[in-house]
């Protein structure tokens, strides 16, 4: 029983890492624009597809034919760059004209962009599920303890995500543009008055967030099948993770994502019956139940401080 629990926690770490990468994008954009960027999940989906195409193309080269894993990892930066460009493009064309409009026209636009990406992908890429080239090395299991193991790909997912999160932390805390991002999220008008180019900071935020989503897309594509609507559910869950940790807070996104990942894998993993029903069937609903619960108990999130509204 204890081993099982430990195994689920290890699995949860891997699931949570991917949620964290996506949740960061949601939380950064929310922190700066107060916008739920519904299109974020679809940028992640396109990241997975860019990774798929790039790795398929790369694995035709003689040196990479027998190492699909290497081709996949080389495609991570490509997907990140493509997603960053796409994120900035969306921000410039769809969100920027609405900078001074009320918040919910922005929200409606975000929903529109999200559906646009999903169904353009559906129309032009096709609705079929696709597979990355499988590399047997990626699915070998490493034994951590008795009856507790982790596959190479899950370990790599954790390592790469943590690496990217450290890089993000460095950017936000120790660079000029990071300082500007923090300033804009605290007070946009004051930041503008201090000579910060707010539009550039917002674009940069979208670029960074989208790049992380692109990386998450490749890391998921390596393990599971990809299709045009894969970003809907995963995106919503990552968003729930961001709310759980405290929306707008970068550490909050990570805490929320790992919590959500753990809880979800635990619910999926337990083989018991409660009142005659298997809780694992409802794993998809868990995230949303957590969401409603957190809104009831502590709407500012696990790490958030509640602020009183001033007139």
């Amino acid at each position, binding site marked *: 029983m204890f081993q099982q629990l430990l195994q689920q926690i290890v699995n949860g770490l891997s699931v949570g890492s991917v949620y964290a990468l996506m949740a960061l994008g949601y939380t950064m954009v929310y922190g700066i624009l*107060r916008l*739920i960027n519904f299109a974020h999940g679809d940028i992640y989906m396109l990241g997975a597809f860019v990774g798929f195409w790039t790795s398929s193309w790369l694995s035709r080269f003689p040196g990479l034919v027998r190492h699909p894993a290497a081709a996949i990892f080389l495609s991570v930066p490509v997907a990140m760059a493509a997603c960053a460009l796409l994120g900035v493009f969306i921000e410039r064309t*769809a969100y920027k*004209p*609405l900078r*001074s*409009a*009320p*918040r*919910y*026209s*922005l*929200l*409606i*636009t975000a*929903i*529109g*962009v*999200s*559906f*646009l990406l*999903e*169904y*353009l992908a*559906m*129309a*032009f*890429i*096709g*609705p079929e599920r696709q597979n990355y080239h499988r590399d047997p090395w990626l699915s070998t299991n490493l034994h951590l303890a008795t009856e507790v193991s982790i596959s190479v790909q899950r370990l790599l997912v954790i390592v790469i995500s943590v690496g990217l999160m450290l890089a993000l932390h460095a950017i936000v805390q120790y660079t000029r543009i990071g300082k500007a991002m923090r300033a804009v999220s605290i007070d*946009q*008008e004051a930041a503008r008055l201090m000579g910060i180019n707010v539009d550039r900071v917002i674009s940069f935020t979208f670029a960074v967030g989208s790049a992380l989503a692109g990386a998450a897309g490749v890391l998921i594509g390596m393990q599971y099948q990809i299709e045009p609507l894969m970003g*809907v559910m995963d995106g*919503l869950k990552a*968003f*729930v993770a961001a*709310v759980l940790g405290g929306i707008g807070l970068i550490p909050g996104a990570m805490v929320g994502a790992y919590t959500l990942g753990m809880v979800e894998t635990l619910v999926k993993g337990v083989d018991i019956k409660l009142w005659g*029903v298997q809780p694992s*069937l*409802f794993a*998809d*609903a868990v*995230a*949303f*139940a957590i*969401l*409603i619960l957190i*809104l*009831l108990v502590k*709407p500012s999130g696990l790490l958030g401080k509640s602020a009183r*509204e001033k*007139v």
Partner: protein
Amino acid sequence: MTQTAPNPVVKTTTRLPKRIPLFRAAAWLGAFLLIYLAGQWLFDTGTISKSFYMAAVQICIFIIAAVSLNLITGITGQFSLGHAGFMTVGAYTAAVLTHDVHAPFPLALLAGGVMAGALGVLVGLPTLRLRGDYLAIATLGMGEIVRVIFENIPSLGGASGFTGIRKPAPLFGLGDDGFALWGWSILFTVLTLLLISQFIRSSHGRACIAIREDELAAETMGITTVRFKVLAFSVGALFAGIAGGLLAHLVRTITPANAGFLKSVEILVMVVLGGLGSLSGSTIAAAVLTIINFATSDLSTVTLPFVKETSALRTVIYALLLVLLMIFRPHGLWSGRLRLPWRRGVRDVA
């Protein structure tokens, strides 16, 4: 933050009379009666086919859905993304009642509405205490929870849905059984429009509009904002439940997938297209979009170069419409400028 762009809702510039003027109410009722009779005559004589009947009833159903969402989003300014979830709850309730209990059809519909309304209170109470986008997120989550729950109830058909829903008897026993829902859907459309436009004119409705305009100011004026937000939200949910019940008995099968996000967004598009806060706008937009949906329903048989899945293009157009509307015409396509010549100069919410 300074807000310079206009609010995307259709503003009330003139004071609404407390009651709908008798003449106008009579004119509307007469118009609907005419539509009902004309439709019934066309169906009974077999002039137009069954698929037109399906389209006509669906227009009514989506009018109910869009107008009730407009009450929540356009009038009260609260953002709900789970309207299809409420419809599905109403649909299952009504279907089970007519199927297993043999309840009379209108009672089953109302029960479905009450069920959806109760769910609205349940979701609204915790989330409407908060300001901001929390309702949007929570209702979105609610829609997905509804879907997952119904997928896992085997006695309701699980993921493949509840089938074999009974055919209701026609309104007043008039007309052919095959077109039974026409009378009912017209009746409930009229009731919805009447009740919601009367609600807007009541002091409760004014409170809701005040909340939309400025929540803090409304609270300062002594409006208990949470109460009115929950009220508007659950009334909207109630009518959505009724629309769902009608839809279930029209299609005679209901699947959990109907509760999903996509369906909710389709209704949202109707509301945005018609103009947030404009009931007539929602009515027309619901009718137009439903007709377009029907006209393009066999799109998947068409082949276009580079396009692998033609049926996806419809949603592409929906999405594009939403984005372009918000950027270029935030007041809806006709911006409350749909002025009938004899009503020039009057611009109102209803």
